[in-house]
């Protein structure tokens, strides 16, 4: 039995500010970090609010450590005070009129004074806040506020920890600090941790499991690697930031040599055998930018058919701190006839070192290699 099990349904009527919305999810979690990932407004925070008891779903139930927190059928709904859930709000929600020490002590006011002092000290120590104990929240930096907020939530020894966009608005080094803090929490507390984010990098750095949200539903749940390599739909792939998404027609199916040939309007590729597909079927597939490899044209003129080699031209380069994004145009593609106005067809991402070593600044004509192992053909038919 999982530590946390929930099924929720709640519909929000359309209002002046927002269209109608249905939250309909079910999720079960063990100890460890589960990242709720999805676009803004896809229902992630609503899930946390329902768990914490700020929102009353119309249907469903919430079980935490085998205790019923909410059950629509029997009308049971524990108030937030009695749920034993730690919530780190997006704005940290520290009490502005109290010092850091008082903020931490708030949740354990019932303990005897000595015990309370001991716990507050222990937490301040653990989160490196000892020197800031007498400061008020407005005298803290963003990172310090965040640590204080997490310490305040954990001091009550919650059975579940909810984190709403914890690193939003924090600088990169502070984000790294947070990842470290989270790793420590993970080791010290054997509780489920739900972390909401819409940032791919964050979600996939921290997660043991990722639940992908789309319009109030969980569309895919699994290990981060699994989701990155095999997104369930084109929508999930787009959420993950994969821009190389194509549709094509199945031209050849050969189970003996384990290959399928797919032709798009721009090029043909070979992928492993696709069971259950027929010749002429339309399929959608994607390949992450970092797996689109560049090969110098002179090196492999001889066998262009192997490893899905396609001649391309670099039309634009976007330099980011660690990588260079190359926008590629498939050579020989006739874009005028079908009215395809896209100025590029594919994207590749290379490290700056590779960019320099390969002389990408000068050489514009390349072959791309699309390794079979990283081409993911979507199971569902959709745009």
């Amino acid at each position, binding site marked *: 039995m999982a530590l946390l099990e929930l099924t929720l349904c709640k519909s929000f009527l359309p209002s002046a500010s927002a269209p109608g919305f249905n939250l309909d999810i079910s999720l079960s979690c063990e100890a460890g970090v589960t990242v709720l990932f999805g676009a803004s407004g896809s229902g992630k925070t609503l899930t946390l609010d329902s768990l*914490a*008891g*700020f929102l009353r779903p119309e249907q469903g139930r919430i079980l935490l450590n085998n205790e019923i927190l909410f059950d629509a059928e029997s009308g049971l709904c524990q*108030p*937030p*005070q*009695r*749920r034993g*859930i*730690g*919530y780190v*709000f*997006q*704005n940290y*929600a*520290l*009490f*502005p*009129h109290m010092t850091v020490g008082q903020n931490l002590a*708030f*949740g354990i*006011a*019932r303990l005897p004074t000595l015990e309370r002092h001991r716990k507050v000290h222990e937490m301040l120590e653990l989160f490196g806040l000892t020197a800031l104990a007498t400061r*008020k*929240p*407005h005298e803290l930096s963003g990172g310090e506020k965040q640590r204080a907020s997490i310490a*305040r*939530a954990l001091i*009550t020894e919650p059975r579940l920890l909810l984190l709403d966009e914890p690193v939003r608005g924090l600088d990169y080094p502070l984000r790294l600090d947070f990842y470290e803090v989270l790793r420590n929490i993970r080791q010290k507390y054997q509780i489920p941790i739900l972390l909401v984010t819409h940032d791919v990098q964050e979600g996939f750095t921290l997660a043991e499991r990722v639940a992908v949200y789309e319009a109030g539903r969980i569309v895919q749940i699994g290990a981060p690697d699994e989701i990155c390599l095999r997104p369930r739909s084109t929508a999930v792939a787009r959420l993950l930031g994969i821009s190389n998404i194509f549709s094509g027609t199945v031209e050849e199916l050969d189970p003996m040599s384990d290959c399928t040939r797919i032709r798009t309007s721009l090029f043909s590729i070979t992928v492993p055998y696709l069971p259950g597909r027929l010749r002429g079927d339309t399929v959608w597939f994607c390949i992450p930018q970092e797996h689109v490899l560049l090969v110098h044209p002179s090196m492999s003129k001889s066998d262009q058919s192997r490893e899905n080699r396609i001649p391309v031209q670099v039309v634009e380069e976007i330099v980011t701190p660690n990588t260079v994004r190359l926008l590629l145009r498939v050579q020989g593609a006739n874009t005028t006839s079908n009215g395809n106005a896209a100025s590029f067809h594919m994207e590749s991402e290379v490290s700056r070192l590779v960019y320099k070593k390969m002389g990408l600044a000068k050489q514009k004509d390349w072959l791309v290699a699309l390794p079979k192992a990283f081409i993911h053909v979507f199971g569902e038919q959709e745009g």
Partner: protein
Amino acid sequence: MPDVLRQIDWFPLWLSLRVASFATIVSLAVGLTLAYVLARYRFRGRELLDSLVSLPIVLPPTVLGYYLLVLLGRNTPLGRTFEGVFGFPLVFTWQAAVLAATFHSIPLLVKSARAALESVDHTIENAARTLGASEWRVFFQVTLPLSRRSILAATIFAFARALGDFGVTIMIAGNIPGRTQTAAVAIYDAVQSGNTLLANLMVLIISLIAVGILYWTNRLQEGLYP
């Protein structure tokens, strides 16, 4: 000049301050409760309650005073109950002036306090709840401290309103010199009887108090948290 000051009857001014103080205490206790209920709960009749609370702002004070007189006069059930419990009739006493001033000052206090309570960041209150704090504790340790400046400003303002009531007071407390004649009523009386010096002096003192109060509330509201 000291001679003139010695001639003046200070009772109305003193009575006004006393009446306004009592009225402010009552307004704060009742008004804060009403404001909390209006800010926190969604229930049937909420808007009606809100309208009723605001009614004294739009009604002419004499109309409000007349209502109170009809409700609390010596021959009404409420008036008789009061007289039975306390041993004296309510109307035409300084206690009636307190009631009048309370009705005059409470709508503004409720409105400001409600706005102040509603302006407190709900996530901060919710954070307190997840930390196990009862609703009682959330209110007294989080909501109230975070809105205390605005509520204090509203209270001072309510005091000023209570100090200045004329219409309701004269309807239910009357104009009995030395017993129920407040400063506002005394000024009217002084003007009527041609005692310009007394009227001028009282007007000056009341104005100074009013300006002082407004200055203070503005200062309070500017120095917002933290």
